[in-house]
């Protein structure tokens, strides 16, 4: 073991697994926020934790259990009409309670359940790294195709259907990516750290820059910066990684205050825009 644990080979797999997942979760979190579905991430991550602990009780691989539980929750999310934040809240509560109840049925189950919810990173192995790598590669391949489709569906909800463009390819890809990211993030890092990476980077990124692609890049940069600092800090000061990462992201959310400075440097009032963008009024229709 090297003198400084950060460079110890046994931490390389956890580090790179977390790094790849951080990029994926930050990016997918931006899509969730754009679609106003960010609370779904918390619901799905708790379902993944419940699936993981159920699998441990049944002596099957936790990843398989997490994928099954999150897959079922995703199917319900797609199938039910008008799914919203209340449903995601129920999903989260169901996942949390199930995780700890199931945990009581196995030796050290409560500790495992706590770890799945609160988070860790050091017990990730080659399968986790492989999963994170595949997710990262697929996401990278699809992002430029998927982003415009999701944006169009957000602002012109029936555009694809009206023009008989199949909706299922991009809807399936989106839901599969959200599910895979949530499962891998929860099993590798914990439900709350995974949620923090889905929730916070885009919350900051969306207000600090103008332009969709720039905000995606900034969200990823914020996630990666928080991850690297947290990883180093947790190892050097011997703190639990999950809470450190979550706390780091919460602290970084104060960057949103910079928005006020941006607004001061480029003041554009509604009246000014009104003067600039519209011709003199004739009040033709108002007078009738």
């Amino acid at each position: 073991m090297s003198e400084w644990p950060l460079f110890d080979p046994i931490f390389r797999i956890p580090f790179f697994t977390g790094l790849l997942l951080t990029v994926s979760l930050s990016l997918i979190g931006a899509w969730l926020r754009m679609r106003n579905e960010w609370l779904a991430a918390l619901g799905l991550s708790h379902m993944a934790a419940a699936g993981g602990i159920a699998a441990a009780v049944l002596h099957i691989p936790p990843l398989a259990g997490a994928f099954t539980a999150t897959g079922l929750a995703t199917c319900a999310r797609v199938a039910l009409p008008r799914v919203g934040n209340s449903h995601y809240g129920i999903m989260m509560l169901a996942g949390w309670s199930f995780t700890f109840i199931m945990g009581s049925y196995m030796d050290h189950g409560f500790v495992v359940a706590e770890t799945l919810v609160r988070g860790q990173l050091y017990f990730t192995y080659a399968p986790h790294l492989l999963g994170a790598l595949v997710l990262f590669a697929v996401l990278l391949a699809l992002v430029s195709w998927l982003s415009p489709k999701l944006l169009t569906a957000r602002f012109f909800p029936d555009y694809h259907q009206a023009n008989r463009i199949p909706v299922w390819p991009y809807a399936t890809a989106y839901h599969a990516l959200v599910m895979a990211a949530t499962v891998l993030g929860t099993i590798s890092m914990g439900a709350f750290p995974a949620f923090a990476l889905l929730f916070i980077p885009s919350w900051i990124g969306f207000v600090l820059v103008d332009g969709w692609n720039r905000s995606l890049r900034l969200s990823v940069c914020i996630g990666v910066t928080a991850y690297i600092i947290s990883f180093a800090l947790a190892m050097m000061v011997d703190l639990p990684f999950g809470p450190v990462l979550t706390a780091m992201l919460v602290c970084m959310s104060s960057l949103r205050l910079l928005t006020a400075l941006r607004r001061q440097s480029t003041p554009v009032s509604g009246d000014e825009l009104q003067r600039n963008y519209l011709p003199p009024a004739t009040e033709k229709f108002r007078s009738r």
Partner: protein
Amino acid sequence: MNDALHAHELLSFDEVVAGYTSPVVGPVSFEVGPGEIVGLSGPNGSGKSTILRAITGQSRIFAGEVRRMQRLRITHQWQRPELPPELALLARELYALTGADPDSAPEHLRSLMSLPLNRLSGGQFQMIQSMACLNAPVDLVLMDEPTNNLDGRALELLSQMLKTKAPSKSVLLVSHEKAFLQDHCTRFVEMDA
């Protein structure tokens, strides 16, 4: 829906009854030809928006037939579009989602194009959406109450855009403002409550 249609029609409704879990509107019959601006008017709750959604497939057709030209391209400007409170998407990027060229936007809208959506007012956001639909490379534009939220100047700009649209492009225009419909539509379909 059936694609069989007369050559001079883009779209036709034949005794259509439409709704969601149960019928809301109908039977309704009308057709839209190339270059026409057809107005749909009627009181609140008469099912005007449901008719537009029957064209795009968002509402259910219980009886009758909607026939549309093969490979008909459509954009739909929704009533009361929700302005996201925090989103870095630029007006220019929103405009391009329908395939419209942001550089071909009306001169007076160009100063808005470099702004993110969260810096637009509700009326400005609606105006950008309307223009994105009208300037898209499509055959038929569905506009649902496009005059809502607009002040006199914005109404004038919308009016100009409707009058100078491409000659082959058709518009199905839903509005409760009779004066606006009278000024712009080739003909009307009056709907009962």
